[in-house]
């Protein structure tokens, strides 16, 4: 057996059609052609049921038997949508309702659609995201809370608290987002947190979502990786330690940085680099299987790789990125010379992960020594070339290395060395003056090329 025969030669437009067809086919597999129509139909049912239930609250209490059948129908609809989509985003804007960006046709029930929007807007909510299909009691609690009078102040937050108190979980209330027309002009608001804080928070959020039993949603992490790739990977601010960062999330982010350093040096194309970064942010996600949603039993080291692959499988549809990160999760602790040789991502992540664990998490080794210890295992535990790329990328004194200068000052390496010339002279900041006192924070970077002999210090 071989491959399916290709079509004969075509003109430019024919080639374009064929290429686009294949690209769309790739994007659609797992979506299947009927998916949008299915979502539209189910979304319509969801919107109308929700609207109908809210209307009924004006006459009856939600625990009335009259709610039994429509509540059951709503639950079934949510289950079907969840099976298709994972998270279901219902957004009401002006007189339209969208479910995962599919506009719901109002038809002869246009008033029902408008009413749903109005009910949500009373609570200053623009929509609801259902991360999980709600069970009957939660649905009754939801419509009870939605049907109640809105709070005078911060109505959406008050609603969220009421839902939480009522035992409703797995949903999110969306704000009423306003998109201005051209000419209306208003400055856009950026997230005030610095990039690393945002990245660590998003990574933590992804882990918490998995622990809560939600379907993986890699898009926010991919956006972060995309932004990271637009920045200078050697920039000092990317290697700072954000205060009170959750250790797990910070580790995932550091591994991603290190992996991308290697990937960049390898010359991987942008799409593969993105996939590598996302795989790194998920690589230890198997530990999330110890969350309450999965039974609350902590996951052992031996099981976390396969657990991670299982969690990642929850995401529907084939995508090469999903396949790559699943393989990476499975293989990232395997030795490079293992009989079952790990793939490229697995080998990169092994190098990145062990380095971060040795240098930062252990708290006992300087980053320089961590690299040097790993280098002894090049070709066995670690892919020789990939480890060397990491060494080249980080330099002799990777970020975080404490060095004592000849004059007694103590400096810390704050960024990777860029290029062979700077291999042993990375950017560094003084942390202690020659007299041992703490250095002011606004001192300029120290040029280690002229600093004379350096002594590597162990972490204090």
């Amino acid at each position: 057996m071989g491959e399916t025969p290709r079509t004969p030669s075509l003109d430019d437009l024919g080639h374009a059609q064929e290429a686009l067809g294949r690209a769309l086919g790739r994007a659609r597999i797992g979506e299947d052609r009927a998916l949008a129509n299915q979502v539209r139909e189910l979304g319509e049912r969801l919107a109308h049921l929700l609207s109908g239930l809210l209307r009924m609250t004006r006459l009856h209490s939600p625990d009335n038997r009259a709610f039994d059948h429509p509540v059951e129908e709503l639950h079934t609809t949510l289950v079907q949508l969840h099976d298709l989509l994972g998270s279901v985003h219902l957004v009401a804007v002006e007189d339209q309702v969208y479910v995962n960006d599919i506009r719901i046709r109002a038809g002869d029930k246009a008033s029902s659609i408008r009413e749903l929007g109005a009910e949500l807007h009373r609570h200053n909510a623009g929509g609801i995201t259902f991360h999980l299909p709600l069970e009957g009691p939660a649905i009754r609690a939801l419509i009870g809370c939605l049907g109640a009078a809105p709070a005078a102040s911060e109505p959406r937050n008050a609603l969220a608290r009421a839902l939480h108190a009522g035992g409703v979980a797995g949903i999110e209330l969306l704000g009423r987002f306003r998109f201005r027309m051209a000419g209306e002009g208003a400055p856009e608001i950026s997230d005030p947190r610095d990039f690393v804080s945002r990245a660590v928070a998003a990574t933590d959020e992804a882990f918490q979502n998995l622990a809560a039993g939600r379907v993986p949603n890699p898009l926010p992490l991919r956006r972060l990786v995309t932004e990271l790739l637009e920045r200078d990977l050697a920039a000092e601010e990317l290697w700072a330690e954000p205060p009170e960062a959750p250790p797990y999330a910070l580790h995932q982010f550091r591994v991603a940085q290190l992996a991308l350093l290697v990937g960049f040096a390898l010359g991987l194309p942008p799409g593969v680099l993105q996939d590598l970064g996302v795989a790194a942010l998920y690589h230890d996600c198997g530990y999330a299987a110890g969350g309450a949603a999965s039974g609350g039993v902590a996951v052992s080291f031996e099981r976390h790789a396969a657990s991670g692959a299982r969690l990642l499988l929850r995401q529907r549809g084939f995508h090469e990125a999903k396949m790559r990160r699943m393989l990476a999760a499975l293989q990232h602790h395997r030795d490079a010379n293992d009989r079952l040789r790990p793939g490229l991502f697995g080998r990169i992540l092994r190098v990145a992960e062990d380095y971060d664990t040795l240098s930062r998490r252990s708290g006992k080794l300087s980053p320089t020594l961590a690299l040097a210890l790993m280098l002894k295992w090049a070709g066995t535990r670690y892919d020789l070339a990939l480890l060397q790329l990491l060494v080249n990328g980080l330099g002799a004194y990777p970020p975080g290395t404490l060095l004592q200068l000849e004059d007694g000052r103590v400096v810390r390496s704050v960024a990777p060395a860029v290029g062979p010339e700077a291999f042993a002279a990375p950017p560094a900041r003084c942390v202690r003056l020659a007299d041992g006192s703490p250095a002011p924070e606004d001192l300029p970077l120290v040029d280690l090329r002229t600093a004379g002999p350096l002594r590597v210090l162990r972490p204090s």
Partner: protein
Amino acid sequence: MASDEHAPAPPAAHGDQPPPEHALEAPGEEHKVAGSPHAQAANAAVLALTRAARSFTLYDPSNKVVRTLIGEYRDRFRRALDGHGPLVLDVHPFELLLGPEVVYIEKDRERSLAFRLFRDGVRRIAFDAGTSWEELLRLLEILSIRYTGVRQQEDDLVTLLRKAGFDHVHVAAIEGFVPEEEDAEPPLDVDLMRATGERYDPAPQWDLPLPPFPEAAPLSYRPVAPELLERLRGEEAPEVLPSEAVRSVLELLQAPARPDLGAVLGFALEVREFLLLEGKADLVGELASAVRAALAATPEAISPFLASYLDARALRVLIQALPPAAEELPTALAELLDAAPGDTLGRLVDLLTEEGDGPRAPLLRRLVARGCRHAPETLAARLRSAKGEVAVVLLRLLGEVDPAAALHAAGEASTAGEAPLQLEALKRLEAAAFSPEVGRALRHLVESPFEEVRVAALPVMAVRGGPRVFPALLAHVEKHAAHLSPAEATAAGRALVRSSARSALDAFQVWLHPKGGGLLGRLVKLHAPLPLQRVTLAGVVAVLGEEAEEMLAFLGEKGDAEVAGAATAALAARRRAGGGRG
């Protein structure tokens, strides 16, 4: 496929008819704008882009309409860039602006290109004058995906645009964008949103302890050889993705703490979709075989998996990858088909039906015959609903794998509505031992509404039935005497004689010399209608002897002109041959 409630109903997805004029134009607010020549050109280009991108929600990619729209997109963008230089579009929520001029406006969020760009964080998209066609195509691909994508878990426009690595298309996107709210509220404690209401953190010593590291090596900068870098990059090249996908399934199945089997098999089916799309028939087969082997310890899972896996599409890809003249199946495929449940045979029959007289018909017939070994009843069941040439092929195949079932099916087919199938059934009956069932079937065929079938069936009934069927044959001839064509009359005459020559001659005598009639009867021509004269002539010509010659002479003297001439000629030929008296 998604359709807009304001748009006209789309034409059939696979049709190549030109669409109604209005289907190609942008309804709603997506309309042409006035303005400077540059703005108008930009408007035309952007509209062409959105129409081309949205066309994939309406039409199959191979449709001629799509081709037309792609061509328009290319031409209009080229016109805008060649005629006016770089095109810099500022992205607003529902509009695209060229400087101060609006060149695109669409407020429907489902349809609006501007909204999708803005929502994903894109604020500017700029095209250099030298933007290549390949880059424009890549952009079209990205936007088309976003218009058809529903799950939206993996990519948005920004990540796709960054992934594309454009040289002449520049995208400015903002990150960490906080959408403006009508009435913003302070952020809520995020724990309130969790399903469990609690944070979960792995144990502090996760991934620890590491294995021992007793020795260190000196650090130095060493360049890595370009060839090695290229080899490493090659491990993630697009062409290795299919085999990596297969590997990923196998790794999951072999993992020591194996993940949920249902989820893994579901993933295997997703990988199959990918392999089918890529035309990797060899890997489609390999994956199925590997999964089957991996499920050896849970055999009850194999059959349902293969039933889903070996659907019509997968089978088509597997078959099309085989050389048409292939005599033997590859071992892996053979084992797979043997292990597949009965539905697979039905799908093979469907493929055979589709193939018709195509180059793979012989191969498919072999595959169906092979499959019948495991489920012969499937073929007989399908035969009942089959039509045309397919029915003939199926009956023939059934004869190869289960002659008894084929004979029974032939009996059923004798009352079927199609001539080719009845003729094929006749062949089966002709080869079978005579029995009441066969006799009934042959009688049905002699009574067939199709003359060609009747003409073919008459001699078979006579030969197989012998004298016992003579009365039925005679009754048939006399019943239809008025309508027998020359060919059928000839066949009937020969059949009667073959069934029983004596009885036939007696019957001919009665037709030629009816009792009574007197002198007048002797003086006028035959009362037997022309068809019966033909029947008699054909029968008598096949019989030797004086009685037969007398009848020939009688026909030559008294018969209708056509019959008389033929009878006289036959008699003369017989006498010339010297075989006139026997």
